[in-house]
């Protein structure tokens, strides 16, 4: 932490926003429209963070019963008054987008993959689930995938206002006055350290810690966890807040799918199946879950089982075993979301990935078992048992639905999968005004946060709420920051 005013500031603005995704945009635009001179600092060469490569959906609930739903999902990890303000403001997300010149359309997906993003609630049996409605920025595929349209719209708002953005400029430290007020930011740009004065406030919107191995090992319930999103999220905002004595919350929370970690790639590939001919087995070749019934953001719950006898996570990594029709049906890694989306074209019949050795094949279950270092007898037994359930139309072990059952016939294939983070949820604790709090619950003067950095999702996560939350608390942070009395 740096205390005190530098002898000379390199530059000064009213509001400094650290991190340029959906929350950073909402914060910057709102502060700007309230009359503040705003600077955005972005660590990466381009803005967008996870916003640009996510599913692109935005929650706009259709009723206040959504408060009840989220309150239950939060399992008392987030104060109800924060959830209330979130829902009230999230109901206005569509209105805000329209005011800003955009349009939204209801998200009505083709639910054909395992797993897939669904239209409705992730937890349909919870009270208030019927209020979940997801939207995305209106447009056609020719205008981009939903997240590309979202980022085009959001970045356009910043460009239109000529808000200054410094890319490749990571913030390193917060500067505070002897009285504890945040006065500015130290950042790095082109190899130089620059001090930036914030006359009114600093807003942190720089994401979580998906690409910080140490934090992940310390906090997450499943180890190791790969990531699917931006490599730029390395917990910078968390460390900056800890250095100035801020409190943190929700650090063990995550949105987590499964992914394949290919050699030479920073991020993992999101893997899904376009046909029901697949199962998951642990390191020892045994099934452990209804593979078709896992909520898309909650895979870690099934993978975090720890075996205290063997002192290991037996399901990390796991193997997906699949059949020939599934191999031919379509690419295991979809092009709709994830950092690798624009970096690699997965072959349509998975043949290129077989050739690379990413996908292993066996003429029989026993041959495949040898390739994945599993006892052949166990894998054969697992598949025989599963096939028996398929023929009977009932999965006696894990209750996989009849429509999701198809027996597995050789040749068979295997791909190694890891827990793969969409994002982490932890970071600075904040209140309903987006103010960052200290361990006693007092706001740290002139410091705000929004988005995935210390999100309000403290237990279960409802899809489309990260973008929705970024927009809501970004707007709140921007409005409050711009209302702070400027320091001379």
């Amino acid at each position: 932490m740096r205390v005190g005013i530098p002898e000379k500031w390199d530059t000064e603005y009213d509001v400094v926003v650290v991190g340029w995704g959906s929350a950073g945009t909402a914060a910057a635009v709102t502060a700007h429209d309230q009359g503040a001179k705003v600077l955005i600092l972005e660590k990466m060469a381009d803005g967008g963070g996870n916003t640009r490569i996510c599913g692109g959906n935005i929650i706009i609930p259709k009723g206040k019963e959504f408060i009840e739903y989220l309150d239950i999902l939060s399992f008392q990890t987030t104060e109800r008054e924060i959830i209330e303000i979130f829902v009230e403001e999230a109901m206005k997300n569509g209105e805000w987008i329209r005011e800003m010149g955009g349009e939204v359309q209801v998200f009505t997906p083709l639910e054909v993959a395992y797993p897939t993003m669904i239209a409705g609630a992730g937890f349909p049996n919870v009270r208030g689930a019927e209020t979940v409605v997801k939207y995305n920025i209106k447009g056609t595929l020719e205008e981009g995938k939903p997240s590309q349209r979202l980022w085009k719209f959001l970045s356009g708002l910043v460009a239109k206002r000529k808000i200054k953005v410094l890319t490749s400029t990571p913030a390193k430290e917060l500067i505070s006055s002897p009285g504890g007020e945040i006065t500015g930011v130290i950042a790095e740009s082109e190899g130089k350290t620059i001090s930036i004065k914030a006359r009114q406030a600093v807003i942190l919107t720089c994401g979580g810690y998906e690409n910080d191995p140490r934090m992940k090992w310390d906090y997450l319930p499943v180890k190791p966890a790969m990531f699917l999103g931006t490599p730029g999220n390395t917990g910078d905002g968390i460390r900056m807040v800890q250095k100035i004595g801020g409190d943190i919350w929700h650090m063990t929370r995550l949105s987590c799918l499964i992914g394949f970690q290919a050699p030479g790639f920073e991020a993992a590939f999101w893997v899904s199946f376009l046909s029901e001919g697949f199962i998951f087995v642990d390191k020892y070749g045994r099934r452990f879950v209804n593979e078709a019934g896992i909520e898309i953001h909650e895979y870690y719950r099934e993978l975090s089982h720890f075996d205290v006898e063997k002192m290991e996570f037996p399901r990390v990594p796991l193997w997906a075993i699949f059949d020939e029709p599934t191999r031919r049906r379509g690419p295991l890694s979809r092009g709709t979301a994830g950092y690798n989306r624009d970096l690699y074209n997965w072959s349509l019949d998975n043949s290129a990935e077989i050739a690379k050795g990413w996908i292993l094949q066996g003429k029989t279950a026993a041959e495949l078992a040898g390739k994945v270092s599993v006892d052949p007898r166990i894998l054969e037994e697992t598949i025989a048992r599963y096939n028996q359930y398929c023929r009977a139309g009932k999965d006696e072990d894990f209750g996989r639905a009849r429509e999701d059952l198809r027996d597995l016939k050789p040749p068979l294939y295997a791909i190694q999968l890891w827990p793969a983070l969409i994002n982490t949820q932890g970071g600075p604790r904040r209140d309903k005004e987006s103010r960052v709090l200290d361990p006693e619950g007092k706001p740290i003067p002139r410091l705000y946060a929004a988005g995935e950095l210390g999100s309000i999702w403290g237990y279960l996560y409802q899809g489309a709420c990260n973008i929705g939350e970024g927009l809501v608390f970004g707007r709140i942070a921007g409005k409050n920051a711009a209302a702070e009395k400027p320091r001379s």
Partner: protein
Amino acid sequence: MIEASRDRVWRLIGKVIFSSLSNMENVEILDENNFRAILRMKVLGLPVNMKLKGEMVDISPPDSFSVKLLIKGLGGWFQADQKVTFAMTPVEQGKTALACKATVENIGLLPRLLLLGEARRFARSTFEAIEKRLQELA
């Protein structure tokens, strides 16, 4: 007629359509409403690969939706726009009537004469497979 509620039929139908088209391969999900694929068919007894581009439109859960299909093949000689609409109507407690209507547009005269019958047979057999699978799962 499917012995299941309309909501259940709605939840099943996307995956059932996909699984019923066992000759559809190399499916590429472009976004949540668009896909491309290869359809392996037999035309006049000969195996051919058709390029298929599909878009889900007019989605009105849990009542109906349509799939707009653009089918190309035979070295560009065959091209057709097809719209397939599925409608689900509750008829009595726990039962749902499933209707499917397919229309073909923008198809040349010769391909129409030669292939329309084939396409109709294919559409009918696919719909029967979808209905059969839904009945099994009901």
